[in-house]
């Protein structure tokens, strides 16, 4: 039943090595697209599948650790595999499998970097993410973390000849390093005795509330920068459209989750005594991020930017869940903490699957049409039925609709919110339920966003003539999309199976396993608190809808004459319709900017009614960019220009500076 029971850690290390070797093999024939895509990427996909099997085994086992005699002298790499890291490795493996399959058919020659180089960066990226999760000391963690940031930077700038892409890559690198510095400081604050940085030593160190809070805030900033938490989210909507679609899928689905992993590791495992307001901070920040992300997603007109903002929303929901779990954890309510934590981890898994599905779907659309702008797409359901079908599953899942997977995690999280009253803090008792309303608003607006996304791209009439010749995705790409779509459906229909896996994680972090209360209810009904309190049966649910549908269909067939005619669309009798009269992406954004105006920095340029050359435009920009980033950048430039006064480029002046410094030193140190 469970292979590799003996040594999953060895096997996982083997997979890391295997991926690195595949990457190196790409350098053998760097220019050969055939070799890289037909041989190396399928081999990489196999590695992903093996990783899933190994990690699924490891989730149930006791933690295993190992010391690798690599790295600096006296500073070996410590590795550890426990339920938390194993769960996230299941995610990495499952996503890597699908994305590698997709990449087989996706990359074309002549697109930016050489295929061999791309293969190297891709597989280094995959292995570095696994190493982040295996790391058991701060040193290896930071090395793997930086490898991950750098390899993904090179992947983002694959088409490095385009200036915008270079700019996006630079912004990404900058924020990744701000985050890395915060993490470095965080580990520095928690440091163990005598400067030991193995996680065991960090766990043993009990910090004062002040330093503990400092470490927590640094971790929130560091991991938040990687995950795209407000206000460090600005790189996401730039980097995702710039990267090739499989890379955006991988970054959004897996790399953001490594940040969640790190946050859980520090917040629940390394910092032993959490304070109540840590959870509140994460919860509030998460909810704000979720609302911000979904509102900006609603006004985008570039399909990959839209998905990037939607990722920000999901990350917000995930951090809100982590915050809620922390609140329950500090108030010693293990049951609800486990519930919130399970919901969060479940959402991580779900988000990985549906976001990958949609990002890869946009990749296929991009290849078929060369168009990312929603305003020039439309009606692709007729020319690309496979991609449209799979994307529909993804869109419904993101919108949080039953019986797909997005609904299960939102349902779980709402249950955790609903049963929160009973906390010993009366203010929290009142505020936490209001948080659930923000969560529901975000979820409902994500339904709006997905109707916009799917409706504008795949439904309606084609907005451009060239769309009629769009071709459907190839076989490999279809297989990958089918893998993710099936994942979305299976995760939605069999929540108990996932909960059984998550139990090992929750009992590791908060000492409670949900199946202890759900056992005996079987696989069909899902009741994580108590059966009479709340239950959800996705299979019954599906059966109910499909059953009614079938009965209705047969009844209509039996009693109805079945005549069907085709004609022109009616549209209230307006005869001269064109495809330009359909609602556009901007049209979908308009009510959102109108209602939630304070969130946006709107610029409108309305033409004069008598103008010969009318110009109309409207932009919705991010206020945070103007409030935070530009002032910081300007201040930086100003300080640099002050310092620049010293710089003249003439050697005698520099000699004079040296002389003056020496003199000053002699005066003071004498």
């Amino acid at each position, binding site marked *: 039943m469970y292979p590799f029971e003996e040594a999953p850690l060895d096997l996982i290390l083997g997979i890391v090595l295997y991926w690195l070797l595949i990457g190196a093999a790409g350098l053998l024939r760097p220019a050969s697209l055939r070799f890289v895509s037909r041989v190396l990427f399928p081999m990489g996909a196999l590695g992903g599948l093996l990783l899933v099997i190994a990690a699924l085994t490891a989730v149930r086992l006791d933690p295993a650790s190992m010391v690798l005699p690599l790295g600096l002298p006296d500073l070996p790499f410590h590795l550890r595999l426990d339920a938390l890291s194993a769960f996230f490795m299941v995610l990495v493996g499952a996503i890597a499998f699908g994305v590698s399959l997709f990449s087989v058919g996706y990359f074309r020659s002549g697109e930016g970097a050489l295929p061999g180089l791309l293969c190297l960066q891709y597989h280094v990226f995959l292995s570095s993410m696994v190493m982040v999760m295996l790391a058991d000391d701060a040193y290896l963690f930071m090395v793997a973390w930086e490898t991950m940031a750098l390899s993904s930077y090179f992947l983002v700038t694959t088409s490095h000849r385009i200036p915008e892409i270079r700019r996006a890559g630079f912004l990404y690198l900058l924020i990744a390093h701000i985050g890395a510095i915060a993490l470095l400081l965080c580990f520095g604050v928690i440091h163990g005795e005598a400067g030991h940085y193995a996680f065991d030593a960090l766990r043993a160190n009990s910090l004062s509330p002040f330093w503990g809070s400092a470490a927590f805030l640094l971790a929130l900033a560091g991991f938040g920068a990687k995950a795209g938490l407000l206000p460090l989210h600005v790189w996401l909507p730039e980097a995702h459209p710039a990267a090739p679609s499989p890379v955006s899928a991988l970054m959004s689905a897996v790399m953001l989750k490594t940040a969640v992993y790190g946050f859980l590791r520090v917040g629940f495992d390394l910092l032993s005594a959490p304070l109540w307001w840590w959870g509140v901070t994460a919860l509030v920040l998460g909810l704000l991020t979720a609302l911000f992300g979904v509102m900006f997603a609603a006004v985008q007109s570039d399909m990959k930017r839209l998905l990037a903002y939607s990722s920000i929303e999901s990350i917000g929901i995930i951090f809100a869940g982590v915050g809620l779990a922390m609140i329950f954890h500090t108030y010693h309510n293990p049951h609800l903490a486990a519930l919130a934590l399970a919901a969060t981890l479940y959402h991580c898994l779900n988000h990985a699957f549906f976001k990958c599905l949609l990002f890869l779907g946009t990749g296929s659309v991009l290849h078929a049409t060369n168009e990312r702008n929603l305003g020039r797409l439309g*009606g692709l*359901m*007729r020319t690309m039925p496979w991609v449209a079908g799979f994307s529909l599953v993804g869109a419904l899942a993101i*919108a*949080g*609709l*039953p019986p797909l997977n997005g609904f299960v995690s939102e349902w779980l999280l*709402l*249950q955790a919110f*609903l049963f929160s*009253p009973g906390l010993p803090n009366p203010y929290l*008792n*009142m505020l936490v*339920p209001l948080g*659930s*309303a923000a969560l529901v*608003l975000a979820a*409902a*607006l994500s*339904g*709006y966003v*997905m*109707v*916009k996304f*799917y*409706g504008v791209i795949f*439904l*309606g009439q084609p907005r451009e003539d060239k769309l009629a010749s769009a071709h459907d995705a190839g076989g490999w790409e279809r297989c990958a999309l089918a893998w993710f779509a099936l994942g979305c459906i299976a995760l939605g229909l069999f929540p108990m199976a996932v909960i059984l896996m998550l139990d090992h994680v929750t009992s590791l972090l908060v000492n409670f396993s949900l199946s202890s209360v759900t056992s005996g209810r079987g696989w069909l009904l899902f*009741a994580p608190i108590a059966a*009479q*309190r*709340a*239950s*959800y*049966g996705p299979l*019954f*649910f599906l059966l*109910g*809808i499909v059953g*009614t*549908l079938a009965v*209705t*269909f047969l009844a*209509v067939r039996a009693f*109805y004459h079945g*005549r*069907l*005619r*085709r*004609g022109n*669309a*009616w*549209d209230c009798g*307006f005869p001269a*319709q064109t*495809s330009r009269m*359909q*609602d556009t992406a901007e*049209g979908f954004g308009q009510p959102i900017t109108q*209602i939630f105006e304070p969130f946006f920095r709107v610029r409108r340029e309305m033409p004069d009614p008598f103008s010969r050359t009318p110009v109309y435009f409207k932009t919705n920009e991010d206020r945070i960019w103007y409030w935070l980033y530009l002032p910081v950048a300007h201040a930086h430039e100003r300080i640099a220009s002050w310092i620049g006064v010293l710089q003249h480029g003439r050697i005698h002046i520099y000699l004079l500076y040296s002389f003056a410094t020496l003199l000053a030193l002699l005066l003071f140190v004498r």
Partner: protein
Amino acid sequence: MTLAHLISFLSQLTQTLLVVLIAPLMLGWVAQCRAWLQNRSGPGLLQPYRVLFKLLHKDALLAHNASPLFRSAPYIQFGCMVLAASVVPIIETNLLFAPAADVIALVGVFALARVFSSLAAMDVGTAFGSLGARREMLVASLSEPALLMVLFTPLLIVQSSSLNTIVDTLAHREFQLHPSLAFAAVAFVMVLLAENARIPIDNPSTHLELTMIHEAMILEYSGRHLALIEWAHAIKFTTYCAIGIALFVPWGIAQAGVWQVLPGAVFALLVKLGVAGAGLALLESVCAKLRIFRAPEFMGMAFMLAALGMLTRLLLGA
């Protein structure tokens, strides 16, 4: 299969069929009450059935570019609404299907149907279809948080999100009036009006292009598809009324296995639905339709009322 299973299956089937069959009557009743209030004689209670009968005998006319999604959406909507109708206890509380979906999942079923109808509206690619889809999703995304807040109060009182348990507890276990539920009930009525495309958010009898929401989405449908959509809409309306009854006036709904009170329960249900329909007709007659951008204020008010109810419960325990 034991006898008990068979009985609960039959009970489930009867309740679901009852809602499905009386749903058009409910719409007819509201329309009739409105007609009386406006000093008209009205089309009669059975008019919605006549409309369904007529539509089911007409040819279905599809646009040239209508996709399979467009053709399957009415069936999906109908299926969702029947599922929703089958988890709300209306006559007795022992519903076979109830554990499959609690109130949150019920909100999810409505959302599923709504997303499919919006997608189908965008499918043909007409100006009005996509406009309606956009407005419908907008109103829904504003009303869903309010609806959740409404559901919060009974959830807090009963400590359960299963409708069966809520009704059982409120109607049979503790005889106590909860003032917090009054706030929630007012907010619920506002959400009901918004979600069911009634005045003041939408006007079910308008075909004036610029004000349509729900009607704009179904402009391209005809024949059997339109019949299914209209019927699903009626079921949704009735189910919403049934949810309101279950949460706020559950007295009269029979407990599981108490057969002798069933006729009384059916009678009580009909009376409550009748009063609800007449009340809604009155409300619709005295209100004017709001501009679409006033809808956020309306939903915001519903949200605040519901939040007040919840705070009343939390702070005063009322």
